[in-house]
């Protein structure tokens, strides 16, 4: 590297990749530094569900915006990225959940997201392998799935094609005041730094309130036609809500290959990446409740990953108050893949001092200094 880059990004996960993609496209000189390899962290473990969520206006705004960006991009994505607009069906097990379905439908429709309520018959037609009886569901057909490692790779390739440089296998020890000191003793300087290091971000920037939330996933052998949409139980929202307790929620994804990706689980305060039987068992049993057929399916692999979670369920996207050269792009919890592209746009807009398509305030890291941290 001869001239100092404008931006140095730490982390070649989907968020770092999306930032590199946007910034390089905007004509900035970008360097990405990654300790292991592209998508080695949460990105490589994640499901790759691109989904519009309604937990809060801010979450809706970010996921919806980002989903439109995925739509705009999808035509140029190579087959390896496996982009498929299979849609999501939020599954309701009882009348209480159906009430939630109706509320959700209204919410989405008000904001011009296409959603359709499915009664039990329509649900069964849409997904014949779901158990009966169920109360119904909500089909959001604009949602999609991608294969996250390939997506991150693609975004980085595009960034490199626009002049970005990639430094793989380099660990960053300190990141502050316009420079990054690497483990090998060298120092890289840049106009601006971005901490997109996922669960490692607090190590680089002490004070970031991001904690790892462990998840388990199981992938099966090929059973094409079992499931057509990403299926998520409404209880998922409760599971994603709670910051402390361990929880599971039915969440299954059909891959283009015909394999089924079975999730989901959440645990806080666990650092080791071992597969844990108790929660795995709960997760699988929950899945069998909705899709009894998969109990006899061949499970090929189990793995775990750590979602970087912030206390208020919104990511940190923006300047770090203590260091005018340092931007933070992390804390996306289970929505990293979905909101990666929007994160890139927001960061780019902030660095260039330009207006963004959506308000950036809810995601600014400075909010972590204003209010008391929640447990």
């Amino acid at each position, binding site marked *: 590297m001869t001239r100092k880059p404008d931006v140095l990004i730490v982390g070649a996960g989907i968020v770092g990749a999306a930032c590199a993609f946007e910034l390089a496209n905007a004509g900035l000189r970008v360097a990405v530094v990654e300790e292991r390899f*592209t998508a080695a962290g949460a990105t490589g473990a994640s499901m790759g569900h691109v989904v519009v969520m309604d937990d809060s206006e801010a979450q809706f705004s970010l996921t919806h915006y980002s989903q439109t960006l995925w739509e705009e991009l999808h035509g140029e994505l190579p087959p390896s990225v496996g982009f498929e607009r299979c849609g999501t069906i939020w599954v309701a097990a009882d009348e209480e959940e159906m009430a939630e379905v109706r509320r959700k439908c209204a919410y989405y429709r008000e904001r011009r997201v296409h959603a359709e309520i499915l009664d039990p018959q329509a649900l069964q037609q849409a997904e014949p392998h779901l158990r009966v009886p169920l109360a119904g569901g909500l089909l959001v057909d604009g949602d999609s799935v991608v294969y996250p*490692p390939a997506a991150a790779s693609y975004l980085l390739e595009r960034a490199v094609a626009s002049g970005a440089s990639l430094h793989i296998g380099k660990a960053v020890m300190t990141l502050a005041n316009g420079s990054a000191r690497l483990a090998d003793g060298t120092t890289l300087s840049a106009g601006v730094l971005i901490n997109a290091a996922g669960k490692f971000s607090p190590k680089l920037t002490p004070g970031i309130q991001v904690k790892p939330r462990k998840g388990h996933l199981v992938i099966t052998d090929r059973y094409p036609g079992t499931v057509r949409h990403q299926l998520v139980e409404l209880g998922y929202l409760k599971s994603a809500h709670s910051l402390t307790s361990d929880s599971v929620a039915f969440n299954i994804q059909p891959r283009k290959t015909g394999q089924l990706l079975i999730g989901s689980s959440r645990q806080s305060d666990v650092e080791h990446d071992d597969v844990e039987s108790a929660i795995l068992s709960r997760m*699988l049993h929950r899945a069998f409740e909705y899709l009894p057929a998969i109990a006899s399916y*061949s499970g090929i692999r189990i793995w775990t990953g750590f979602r970087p979670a912030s206390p208020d369920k919104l990511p940190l996207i923006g300047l770090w108050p203590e260091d005018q050269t340092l931007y933070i792009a992390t804390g996306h919890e289970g929505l990293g893949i979905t909101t990666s592209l929007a994160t890139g746009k927001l960061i780019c807009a902030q660095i260039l001092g330009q207006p963004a398509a959506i308000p950036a305030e809810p995601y600014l890291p400075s909010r972590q200094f204003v209010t008391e941290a929640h447990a």
Partner: protein
Amino acid sequence: MDSVIQRNFDVAVIGAGPAGIAAAVAAAESGARVALLDDNPAPGGQIWRGGAKSSHHSQAGHWLDRLSNSSVSVLAGTRVFYAHNGALEAESDDSLWQILYGKLILATGARELFLPFPGWTLPNVVGAGGIQAMVKSGLPINGKRVVLAGTGPLLLAVAAYLSEHGANVLCICEQASFSQLCAFAPALAAFPSKLIEAAQLRFRSRRAPYIMNAWPVAAFGKERLQSVQVSENQRCREIECDYLACGFHLVPNLELARALDCRVTNGFVEVNEFQETSQPGIYCAGEPTGIGGLEPAIVEGRIAGYAASGNLNSAKQLLATRVRYKKVVNAMKKAFALRPELATLAKSDTLLCRCEDISFEDARKHASWRAAKLHSRCGMGPCQGRVCGAAAEFLFGWTIDSSRPPIFPVRCSSLAASSLPSSPAQRHGGSQ
């Protein structure tokens, strides 16, 4: 849903090949309550597949008889998918087995190293041990034309077996050169029984030309194999045949040992003189400790079985025998080392990963096995990298070093019923 069966044993032996059978018998005869698990329909492993009648080795009958006359609980058709801290989990057709053990003996054997070359995915391109297993499992071979290719005494053994079952073994292509094999001869002279065995095998396969400096370059055919292109002394010739059986060394099955954090050095499980691994209470015998074939497997199995059941006196009596066998094994490795040309057979569009149809070129561009898996999806299929990973180690020098449960695909219901541990510490009962 499946039934869950829970049992307690003093010693659990995983793998019912010669090492596992010898270990189980030794432990049972020393008074332990023993379980012997294997995912094949019957004990015997590869070498003794099909039982005493289908094996040329007189020992097969002896050991299989001893096994059936012993108190060992044989659980055939039962696939172990994880073990930890005194408990193992295995799946059979309709049940999940949860077995508590005092001591564990890993006798998981070896599988063939498959080296990719154009056409290697055609039906009827098989392993050398593979074709023998298939014939023992009922595949008619009488009158079929077979080309054997690869390296080592296994080729002779398979050629002999196939010939005796009526196959027309067109040739045996040994990739090692004559001079390389000559270097081995003095070492072998110290073990006349080995020389005699080799001569016997050669006699039994005498109708098949034995060609050194020869290896397969490509396989051709439409829906199945029709012919093989072989390089012989720098010249290629095409041979029409029904089967191409390749045997390029054996790869130890280390998945369970790795999942249990047993130390693996230079590609084999480290064991002490009593076959105990770096994890106390876990023993390992046979091919995973070093590829050596039948004799070392039986001795090591016996040592492990005696040691695991507390019968150290009987174990000690076998130590000297084991040491001698290890020297033969080392000499063999050098004699039949794989030549570098074998790493260049694959073209860029030759498949490396057969489960996911990933090409050599798409896998190779990555810096490590982990990156290749994630990005090319090589090794992400049901074989969990058993075929492509072993090939990648030879072709690219990658290290395939981690292993996670389930070490074989099993039903999701089995995964749900299992009791995998919660932490690395719990994996080893608190001791690290």
